[in-house]
Structure formats: C-alpha cells, structure tokens
C-alpha cells in the first residue's frame, strides 16, 4: 500500500483543526447573539417600549443615542463573540435597570488585553504608555478613555489588515473626526471652540488628496518602533509640517501608514519606498533608482559631448 506522506496528514489535521475553531467561534457567536438579543431588543433600536406599572399602559420612549448598539456593526466587530454581560453587570437583566449600575466601572483595553500572551503582538502595554504620554491623556486625564476612539461595540482591527490603504485611512480619520469635527462631542472635554479643520489645514497643498491618502496621526502622532499604530498624539505645535518628512526617500510614511504592508512585503523593484506605490504616489518618496541613474548617465553624456565639442572648437579655431 502506498504510504501517505506525514506532512500531508499534518496539513489535513491543521485544516480540520482550524475549521473546528472557526466553527466553534461561529457557534459561540450565534449562541451569544441569541443571549444578547435580550438587551438589543431595546438597545438595538432608537426607541423602546415598556408597561407603566402604575397606569398599566404601554409607553414608548426614545433610546439615548449613546446607548444604542448597532447590531450589524457589533456582529462585525472584534468583540462580536462576547455576551453583553461579559463586560456589563448581570444585574442589567432587570427593568428598570438599578440606578447604582450607572456607577459601574467600565473596563479599559488594558484591563483585558494587558499581560496576555494571546495579545502580546499588539503590545497593549506599550500602547497604554504611549497613550499616557499623549495630549489626550495629559490634557484630559481620566475624562478621556480608550472608548472615545475605539468604540468597544463596533471597533474592528484596521491597520493590521489587507484592507486598501484608502479604506484604512478613511476608517481611522473618521475616529478623529468623530470628536474633532463634532462640536457637541468636542466640547464634552473642553470649552474651546471646535477648530475648523479645513481652515486650519489651508496651508497644506492638495488638501483633499492628503486627507484621503494619509491619516491624521501621520502628522499628529509620534511613531514608536515597537507598536504598529502610533498612539502618542502630539500637541498642535509639534505636528509634522515639513513636507520632506514624507516627501523624501526616507519617508516617515514607511514607519506609520505603510508599516504593516512594509513588514508583510518588502519591495525591491528599484523604487524607493515601492510599497507606497501599490496604492498611492508620493512625490520625492517614490523615485526609481534606475531612472535616477539613467538620467545621471544621460546628463553626463550630454555634458561630456558639449565639453569635447567645445574643446575641439577651441583647438581648431582660426589662427
């Protein structure tokens, strides 16, 4: 009988195992979704109904926008397999909800993701310390938290994905604009008048193209070699303003927006920062080494030709 190679068996086992784990995850998601539906019956829509125990009549009320959970976004999010009560108190199962639950301490990312082998590659501890150094933390202290940018009910991993750069940019910039372009949210933390982002960035050439092609954090956050997405948001005065920081062969974009793609695929086709070119083009950062060399050689030939011709004219001039 022909022997089946060991690596074939191992590959088969691996496929089987991963399908089992995906199935298990899907099962858990479906099971929890059913469980969560008890909460989403009210929190999954803009209004909720209850029977007034005094009058016995049905009352319809509007749900506060902050407490509405978008079902489809949640089902796509990183926390999709969770039960609501994994993070919130189980006492929420009574209605009206007990008043003391308002004081419930909410988890921060680090509370679950810190010191966890499974999440080691994300470096949550470093993210936490970078965040602590950022203006969001130094200016607003406890008033600011992870959830202001990363909605736990809808957040999904973005930079570490095969998504198109333009989509990553749009998703990430929406996080900043959520407060920085919305006066009501912005003024939750400050009495300042919301800065007009378009007006403030008037100096930036091709503003619309920049906004579509790079994230706010490219200029407004200090990069850190060991984490993928910079969390150390800098004060306005320290934002990058020098064009060459990106528009040069050692473009900072390689250490920020394109960091993941750079790590995944190092490009050596003769283009400086070639990975940027798959989806964009940055003047000054995307020179071609060979074209540069060719132009220098051509220029040298032209100069040499002129020099020889001029010398010959001088030597052979009429005496």
């Amino acid at each position, binding site marked *: 009988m022909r022997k089946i190679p060991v690596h074939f068996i191992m590959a088969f086992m691996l496929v089987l195992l991963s399908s089992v784990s995906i199935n298990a995850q899907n099962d858990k998601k479906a099971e929890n979704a059913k469980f969560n539906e008890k909460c989403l019956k009210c929190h999954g829509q803009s209004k909720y109904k209850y029977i007034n125990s005094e009058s016995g009549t049905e009352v319809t009320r509007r749900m506060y926008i902050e407490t509405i959970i978008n079902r489809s976004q949640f089902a796509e999010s990183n926390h999709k397999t969770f039960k609501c009560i994994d993070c919130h108190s189980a006492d929420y199962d009574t209605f009206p909800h007990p008043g003391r639950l308002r004081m419930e301490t909410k988890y921060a990312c680090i509370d679950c993701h810190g010191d966890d082998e499974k999440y080691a590659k994300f470096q949550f501890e470093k993210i936490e310390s970078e965040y602590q150094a950022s203006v969001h933390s130094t200016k607003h202290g406890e008033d600011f938290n992870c959830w202001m940018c990363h909605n736990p009910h809808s957040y999904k991993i973005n930079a570490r994905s095969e998504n198109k750069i333009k989509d990553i940019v749009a998703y990430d910039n929406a996080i900043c604009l959520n407060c920085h372009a919305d006066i009501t949210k912005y003024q939750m933390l400050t009495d300042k008048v919301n800065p007009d982002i378009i007006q403030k960035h008037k100096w930036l*050439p*091709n503003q*619309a*193209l920049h906004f579509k092609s790079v994230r706010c954090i490219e200029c407004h956050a200090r990069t850190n070699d060991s984490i993928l997405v910079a969390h150390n948001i800098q004060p306005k005065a320290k934002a990058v303003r*020098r*064009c*060459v*920081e990106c*528009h*040069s*062969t*050692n473009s900072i974009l390689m250490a920020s927006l394109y960091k993941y793609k750079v790590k995944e695929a190092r490009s050596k086709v003769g283009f400086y920062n070639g990975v940027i*070119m798959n*989806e*964009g*083009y940055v*003047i*000054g950062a*995307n*020179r071609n080494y060979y*074209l*540069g060399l060719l*132009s220098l050689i*051509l*220029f040298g030939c*032209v*100069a040499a030709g*002129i020099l020889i*011709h*001029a010398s*010959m*004219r001088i030597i*052979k001039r*009429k005496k």
Partner: protein
Amino acid sequence: MSQKIYLYPVWIRLWHALNAILIILLVITGISMQFTNPANPFIRFDIAVSMHNISGILLTVNYMFFVIGTFTTPNGRFYKLSLKGLIPRLIKQFTYYTFGIFKHEPTPFPVTKDSKFNPLQQFTYVAAMFVLVPIVIITGWALLYPEIILTKFFGGSGLKVTDFFHVIIGFFVSFFMFVHVYFCTIGATFVSNFKSMITGFHETH
C-alpha cells in the same frame, strides 16, 4: 564679411526671455523636489512646490502667447517641418556640426530672412515646442489638480503614470535646454547669438 538680418521681432524676444527664465526655474525647483533630502534640502520643499507651481502657470500663459503669435504671424513658416528629404538634411547638418565646423567649412544651411533655422534646429524646436512642452504642461496641470486625474490607469495609479511622464519629459526638456544654450555659442562669434536675443538682429558668418 558678416551681415545683419532682423530676424527676431520684439514679441519673440520677450517670449524667449521669459520662457528661458521660467524653464530654468522649473528645472531647478523640479530637481530639488525630485531629489529632496530632509537633512539638506537644496530648496525647501514647500518653497520649491510654490515656485514650481507659479512658474508652471506662467509658462502655460507664455506658451499660449507663443502658439498664438506663431500661428498668426509669419513666424509660423519657420516651424513648417517638411518631411521630404528630412533625414538627408538632418544628416548633412549633423555632419557639419561633428566634422565640418572644425574644418571651417561654410554652414550647409545659412540663415536667411526666410530660413531662420537649420534642419536640425527646426526638427528639435518643433519636437520641443509642439511635443515635449505640451506634455509637461498637461501633466503638470494634472498634478496641480490631482483630483481630476483618472485614479486607475491600466491598473496602476493614475498619479504615478502622470508624474512619470512629467518627470521623464521634464528631464528631456532640461537636456534640450543645455544643448540649446551650448549651440548658441556657435555663431558669428562666441556671443553674437546672445546679443541677437537682445537686439533682434542675427549676425551671419
């Protein structure tokens, strides 16, 4: 004995002077942006961008002035490239420049009132003014308004293709400029052609 012919009317001299200044500015700022280096910028990037943009816009206006002027005045006849016998004429002029000139032979196509350019000049000027310069102008405007560029061009980024055309053709224009300036020294005397740019009179050999 040298003889003077009035060949360059005022409008051509003005156009040529402005064209020269703008092209020099565009080449210098273009090279500065292309080979930009944060530690040692030749011209600071944002300043180079502004200078390049302004010069480019002025060059477009000046180019339109040239095109209109050329097609509405007798100047246009100098640019009518006759394909008949073009290659032998080009070779004849090329041979003169590479050999004849050193033997002090008479120029094969002397400058007259009706023939301002020799065949090699005519060919390169037509190529420069009606092929290369329009390409850099069109691609330059496209880069100035990148939102109007087709985002995908044969599967690649439209911006990338546009910029490649702009930079490569831009290099050819700069090569043309160097050779053009050098050939200017080949006149009745070393400086006579430069004087003509100011006076309008061409001095024949």
